[in-house]
């Protein structure tokens, strides 16, 4: 699913965020990306979302070299990728329902299918009863579940999460992680960046440890 070959990313000429990174993630894999602050976890996820391109090396997802995509191809690629952030990135002036439906809406999807799919994912994260609430009326865990519902609405082949439990207490973190495990169980490739070692121990999956932009452990 993901093939990185000698990927380097540097900011300001001298600061390597990633250095000569080579790794493979199989389709249907569940990968934890961990390492100390500044290790380059977020940078790798940004490259995978095609927000940025590597300065060196090639990064391929599903066989496509991300650096070579045209604007339109980037749009098409992103429609197949779901993302979740530490700070949820929900739109405060929209209800839960509108937040989730926002994605198909701005992708020009038709209403009936869009509605059915929105209810489906909300039910899946267990929040259909709060669909008319506004994000700020929800707890952190609930907000993150909404964000996950939004990430799933397009049936992505790849889900990327950057510190999805960073703002949540341990019990909620495990709950959210279980959601990701369920997503993964349906065949979706999942990459989660976290520095919560305890959580990784509890979930116990393929873990890639980064430090100073290099892989120090891959097991």
């Amino acid at each position, binding site marked *: 699913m993901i093939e990185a070959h000698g990927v380097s990313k540097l900011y300001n000429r001298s600061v390597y965020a990633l250095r000569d990174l080579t790794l493979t993630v199989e389709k249907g894999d569940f990968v934890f990306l961990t390492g100390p602050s500044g290790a380059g976890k977020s940078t790798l996820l940004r490259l995978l*979302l095609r*927000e940025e391109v590597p300065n060196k090396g090639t990064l391929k997802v599903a066989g496509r070299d991300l650096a070579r995509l045209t*604007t339109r191809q*980037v*749009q098409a690629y992103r*429609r197949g990728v779901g993302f979740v952030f530490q700070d949820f990135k929900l739109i405060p002036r929209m209800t839960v329902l509108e937040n989730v439906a*926002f994605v198909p809406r*701005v*992708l020009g999807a038709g209403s009936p299918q869009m509605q059915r799919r929105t209810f489906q994912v909300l039910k899946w994260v267990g929040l259909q009863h709060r669909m008319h609430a506004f994000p700020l009326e929800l707890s952190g865990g609930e907000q993150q579940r909404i964000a996950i519902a939004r990430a799933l609405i*397009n049936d992505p082949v790849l889900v990327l999460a950057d510190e999805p439990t960073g703002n949540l207490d341990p019990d909620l973190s495990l709950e959210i992680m279980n959601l990701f495990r369920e997503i993964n169980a349906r065949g979706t490739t999942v990459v989660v960046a976290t520095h919560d070692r305890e959580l990784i121990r509890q979930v116990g999956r393929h873990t890639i440890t980064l430090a100073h932009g290099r892989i120090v452990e891959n097991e």
Partner: protein
Amino acid sequence: MRALRYCFDEATASLWRGRGASLLSILTIAIALFVLSGFLVVAANLERQIAQWSDAAELSVYLADDISQDQRLAVDRILAGHDSVVAAREYLSKADALRRFKRDFPDLAGTADGLSSNPFPASFEVRLRGAQSGGDAADRLAAELRQTLGVVDVRYDRQWIQRLSGVAVFCRVTAYVLGGILVGAAVLTVTSVVRLALYGRQDEIKIMELVGAPIGYIRGPFVLEGTLQGGIGAGLALAALWGGVLLVRTRGPQLLEGLADLSTTTFLPPSLAALLVAGGMLVGCVGGFIAARTAR
């Protein structure tokens, strides 16, 4: 179609959400277009009035009190010889002039009666042909008459009309220059107002980009928001101008009684009004587009 609908919904919602700022840019557009079209209306009406006046332009040839019969006939012959310029001529004796004065200014009739002698000169009142009245031929005729014995003065409306034509041209130039500057300011205002709306929705735009929304969905609403501001502004300007024209039509005649018929003051021709609305929308569209370019 769905994209258009989406852009329209978002644009109107955003207009309403930022109604304070939207009102500001709508007003700047309205003011810019009001000034532009206002001067154009004034110029058009002046030109129309000038055309009317030049059709009715008169040339007055004042005669000396001691003019001889022969000299008077000579003047008459000159006028008769210029029938390409002269539409009609009428001889007004000193007595006729006094009578006309008393008729036109009844309040002052008593004063005139008190005078020991009649101060009004005899004259030829000449109506010029419309097409010729502004031309050189009338000038030459006036010059020739001035040289003629027994003529003390020649007066005709051309200087007046020329001066008014100058005013009309000035109005037109002002419309374009001042209107142009204000339109430029309006573009800037729309740009900042739309940019403000855009900054308020950075998260939204970010998410749209990350889920792979087409560029039209990202920028469209902002371009349309500017366009709507422009359209509404132009509408307001036209409404205000129409109100102004109506006011001049109803109140104006009392102000300028007899001088000009203000009750027939004309509005912009429909095609120009439509053009103005389109122009307003274009102004807004440009502003919105400049702002939307910030949204990658």
